């Protein structure tokens, strides 16, 4: 195998720009999950939100023909599922783990059912891809420019939101409330921060980000919908949050590592002859998951001090947790 076909100067730009694009759905979901968990809610429904965002955005784009409306619809369904999670976990204070898993199972069942009902037996429906846009000036930056600034519009939107929501935690009053509510809700409530309101908002943000992730995956990259199209990215995102120690920038870094190994394994498969290769393709397919988890586990073990929000997963009832 000729490694210069992968790591040569031109090939490397292709590899890296695919990496960041591939990373985006996971990155969005992971940053959203970070917000939810910093507020003290473990949202295991992420995979379901991603999947629902993917289907709904695909259907709107397919039938209406508008990628923009599709994206909005994807975000909207994510917010709706975030609201469902908030209603169950925050308002009714039921077990968060069960709620999350239920949302994933329901989303998996319904998306498959709807998709089969609409397109079962037909040829796989596709939508037109969206073209890349070069950002003036920025794409001339050597190295970074061709990798980051020659992507499609959804990529730019995602990048801005991923970074923006990361800053939300440290730079806004809402972020301060989120951090307080996830750490000691009783103290937050005593200083006029509504725990319920803050957690609701955090879950809406989380759902919206996951829904957008689904939209970006389908509309910005694959242009098709298929069973289990999210491919466990939601679960990877949850793992990234834990291994990224609830620090949104570390979590983003983890997501890009995931995108990189994903892009790399596809490239290696292509260069080494794809299916004809003696190595089973499943090995390559598993690579991003294995590498990302290995690196993040190592990072966690080395990091030492516990960073988990103290009230993560614990429902709050006024006057009881005080």
């Amino acid at each position, binding site marked *: 195998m000729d490694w210069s076909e992968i790591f040569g100067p031109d090939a490397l730009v292709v590899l890296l720009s695919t990496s960041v694009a591939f990373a985006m759905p996971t990155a969005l979901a992971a940053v959203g999950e970070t917000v939810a968990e910093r507020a003290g809610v473990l949202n295991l429904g992420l995979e379901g939100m991603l999947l629902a965002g993917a289907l709904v955005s695909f259907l709107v784009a397919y039938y209406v023909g508008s990628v923009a409306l599709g994206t909005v619809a994807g975000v909207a369904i994510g917010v709706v599922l975030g609201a469902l999670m908030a209603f169950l976990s925050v308002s009714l204070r039921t077990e968060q783990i069960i709620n999350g898993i239920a949302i994933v199972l329901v989303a998996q069942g319904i998306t498959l059912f709807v998709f089969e009902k609409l397109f079962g037996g037909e040829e796989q429906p596709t939508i037109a891809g969206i073209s890349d846009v070069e950002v003036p000036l920025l794409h001339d930056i050597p190295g970074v420019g061709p990798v980051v600034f020659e992507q499609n519009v959804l990529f730019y939107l995602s990048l801005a939101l991923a970074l923006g929501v990361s800053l939300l935690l440290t730079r806004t009053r*809402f972020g301060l409330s989120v951090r*307080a509510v996830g750490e000691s809700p009783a103290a937050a409530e005593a200083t006029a921060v509504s725990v319920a309101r803050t957690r609701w908002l955090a879950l809406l943000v989380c759902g919206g980000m996951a829904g957008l992730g689904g939209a970006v995956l389908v509309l910005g990259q694959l242009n098709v919908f298929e069973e289990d199209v999210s491919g466990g990215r939601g679960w990877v995102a949850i793992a990234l949050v834990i291994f990224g120690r609830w620090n949104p920038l570390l979590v983003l870094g983890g997501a890009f590592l995931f995108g990189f190994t994903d892009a790399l394994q596809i490239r290696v498969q292509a260069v080494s002859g794809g299916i004809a290769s003696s190595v089973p393709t499943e090995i390559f397919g598993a690579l991003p998951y294995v590498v990302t988890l290995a690196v993040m586990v190592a990072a966690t073990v080395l990091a030492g001090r516990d960073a988990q929000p103290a009230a993560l997963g614990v429902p709050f009832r006024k006057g009881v947790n*005080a």
Partner: protein
Amino acid sequence: MNASRDGTRARGVSMTGVVKRFGPVTALGGVDFDLRPGEIHALLGENGAGKTTLMNILYGMFPPDDGTVAIGGREMRFASPQDAIAEGVGMVHQHFMLVPTLTVAENVVLGERGGPLLRKRHLAAVSKQLAEVAERYGLDVDPGARVWQLSVGEQQRVEVLRALYKGARILILDEPTATLTPRETERLFPKLRALAAEGAAVVFITHHLEDVISWADRITVLRHGERVGTLRPSESSASDLARMMVGRDVRLMQVVAGERSVSGTKEARPREPVLRVEGLRAKGDRGTPALSDVGFSVAAGEILAVAGVEGNGQPELEEVLYGLRAREAGRVSLDGRDVTYADPAERLRLGLGLVPSNRYRRGLIRELSVAENLVMDRLGAAPFGSELRVDRREVARQAKELIERFSIRVSGPDQLAGTLSGGNAQRLVLARTLSRELRCLVAAQPTRGLDVGAIEFVWEQLAAARDRGLAILLISTDLDEVMGMADRCCVIYRGRLVAQWPRDELDRERVGLAMGGAADRAAAAPVSSAVASRES
């Protein structure tokens, strides 16, 4: 700044006929309370007397069912603490309402109204203002420090500072001295005095008579939700106050201590050590060192007190001794037998008893009945049946007997243990533990949070157990308890035993100094040599 509030004008509080019910329980049955600007007012009472409830009403946590609250002559109806804060009321809760992972300044900004962005400039301005207020009242606090890095005393100053920053002129402190070192307590009150001198009204809730007599201008005593009286410290003695609190004569520490000193002279001859600990090292929950090189021995018929401020390794010591926490180095032996690796069941069998500091978590099972809790360490063998069968009748019989002997106030043996008050829960734990054949008892914070009556009971039980020949290790943060009970006393500071004294050299001030980390100034005998000389 809120326009409705005049930040400098001194205003008093007048609460009249305040009634508060929680379900069937009447917490306050028509209480009058008045608080004047410029005074430090102590609110004294046993647990459950209604002190905190009364103050929570003043702070707007919940409205009274009947009666009125007036500030500066105007009647107030607070819907939330925010309303009370706007009227210049501030409260420092017993369990601090601070987010440990945030900085001091962030804790102050939290919940504040304002634009969506949290600007660095704003935080810097708040920090500066906080530093100014801190300077003015001598509450040295670094606004940029993260709360988890601060000591308990510092966190309390943060709470006071936050209340003052928000414009409090009526300051409520709930049990402010419960977790402080004696030195920190002595630092706190002069600051409160300075506040009062500027026209603020300060009220503190307590059941420590000592604090009341030393620092209060006036004292209001509550009992069972009624006001017993309001008086000045000069008009009353500690025993008067104790009687007002409890409603009967209380035999306080002097009595217990007096009995003990009699038995102490009787037992002057040295006895063989029962519990021996050498070179103990262990980590805390966060993986940080909690105990290092801890060594001591406790002889039959003596109480060795381990004094110290909370957070210096006491829970870890308690857990390691009972086999609930792994130790990294060191040995523990009981009656000459090495039990370093023994599990709790074996230690129990060999005669080690534990009165755990967290009585609801370690001392009993909340979901089981009082009767089941009383015998659970003996189930599975005669006389309570076999491993396959529980003789319910025998359980009930023994439980009834223990309930009577230890005066546990329950509706019946079937009441769930989780519903017991602190004092009764502790009676249950003592009843179970002391009704076994014991050689050694580890009593960790045995009276923490209890009212005077229950404290008295616990002390009597410990003294009686010691006189029966038990070796007792008393881990305590309460200096009164240590002074009254200890035959020997050592001090734990940052996981090390830093000082040790025999009973006749015990000095309140020196123990207090050592608890605060100034062991060298306390000029005590080095621990290792003291232990060695005792064992030789």
